[in-house]
């Protein structure tokens, strides 16, 4: 995709969203590195995709799109829109791809199609920034999207020797309150089999 095509594709996206971003809020948790994050970045992202799909089964709101002011439409099955390596390429994952297993998914993710960027996002967007070293993220949701999950780079955990990855979730504050978003993040961490860092201030 050359620059002109890329700009044209972005213009389409902006027109679709009427240039408006949703009132986006972001939450971030830390999850300890472990078996889920080894051995390669591709497999780590593949496992995250599978975990996110599992979490979407319980709460499909984050894969939904706002189709009108008072209407959201959730896909009948988990749909992911994955951007490995900082969104260098984009890939749509449905039931068939997610059912193929972790290894096959990792191989598929590494062979994403750069041309796919023009397609409007459908389902939950997953952005992998861990390979680029980004530690914090806050995005804006466009085009009526209701959620974006972002895997951030590993950093030394506040306590304990094992490092931890950041996991951020952008969500539409009009449609979802922080508690629900935090529970979705927790469900993703649980599906990953990853331990979360931190304890509640009520203690």
């Amino acid at each position: 995709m050359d620059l002109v095509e890329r700009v044209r594709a972005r213009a389409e996206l902006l027109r679709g969203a009427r240039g408006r971003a949703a009132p986006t809020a972001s939450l971030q948790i830390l999850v300890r590195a472990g078996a889920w994050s080894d051995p390669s970045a591709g497999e780590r992202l593949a496992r995250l995709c599978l975990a996110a799909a599992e979490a979407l089964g319980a709460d499909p709101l984050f894969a939904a799109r706002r189709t009108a002011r008072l209407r959201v439409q959730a896909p009948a099955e988990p749909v992911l829109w994955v951007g490995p390596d900082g969104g260098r390429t984009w890939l749509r994952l449905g039931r068939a791809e997610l059912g193929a297993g972790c290894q096959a998914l990792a191989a598929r993710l590494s062979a994403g199609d750069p041309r796919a960027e023009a397609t409007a996002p459908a389902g939950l967007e997953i952005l992998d920034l861990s390979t680029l070293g980004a530690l914090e993220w806050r995005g804006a949701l466009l085009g009526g999207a209701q959620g974006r999950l972002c895997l951030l780079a590993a950093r030394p955990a506040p306590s304990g020797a094992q490092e931890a990855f950041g996991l951020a979730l952008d969500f539409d504050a009009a449609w979802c309150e922080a508690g629900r978003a935090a529970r979705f993040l927790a469900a993703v961490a649980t599906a990953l089999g990853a331990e979360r860092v931190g304890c509640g201030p009520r203690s």
Partner: protein
Amino acid sequence: MSPRREVPPGLTRGQLDGWIRRRTAYINRFHVAHWYPSCCVQARVDLTAADALRKRLNAEDDQPGSRVTINHMINKAAANALRNHILFNGKYTRRDSAMIYQRVHAANVVDTGGMATRIVIRDADRLSLRELAAETHRLVSARRLTLGEKLDRYSELQEKVRLVEAMFWFLPYSSRLERELSHERALDFLVENPSTVVITNPGTLGVQDCKAMLFFGNLLTCLRAMAIEEEAVLEDGQLRFRRVLPVGLDYDQRLCDAGPAVRLLNEIRRNLEVPEPYLVGPAVEDPRAPLAWPAGRGGEEG
């Protein structure tokens, strides 16, 4: 006596429609025409002194109905600090106007599992820490019991509103706009709305960082507390671990600059780090504070 029901836990796909009906007030409030430029500043609070005070208070009185938690201390610290930064204590009345209140009514976000709601501690700055804790325990229990009923009533109202809107679609645009901009009545169903500031604690759900508006409704300011972390510090050549609480303040950038916001956050931090003089009793007013309520000027009663 009607049966009392708890709010159902997380919503499934089939319940999405009901969810939308319940969220309508918020969706309108956050509509692109209504939301405003928010900024956030963050700080980290050393909890060593607050932890010690909490343990001491709870050792003196360990009744479950009056136990002091870090949550209560955060609320008290924020309410006390607002006394000297009253500009942050207010709410929007229309799209581009706001009212500042003299009395500090702190709203606390309560996560019920399916729908967040708020309780309001009236005159939180005038209460002692122990009184605030007891009042919070009482209101949270009551709120959890009655919320399900209120949500059902709100859903039914939304249905009627939709019907009326379908019948009177030809109403002049200006009157529809006016109605859209006045959400207070709708919000009253979900939140008890005499509040003047909102304090939320996603840290109880393990959230480490959080940016942008969470639960503003029509309030100007939102203080949020994240999950407590442990950090290592080097003091006099000795390594020690301490508990720190990341706190953030969301505010409207049109209302004030970063300086006053950071000063408010610093005062909240001071109240928590030096709790004995600033946190246990009623707020300590600083007459020299530039954003305090002017001395000798009466305020609203509400």
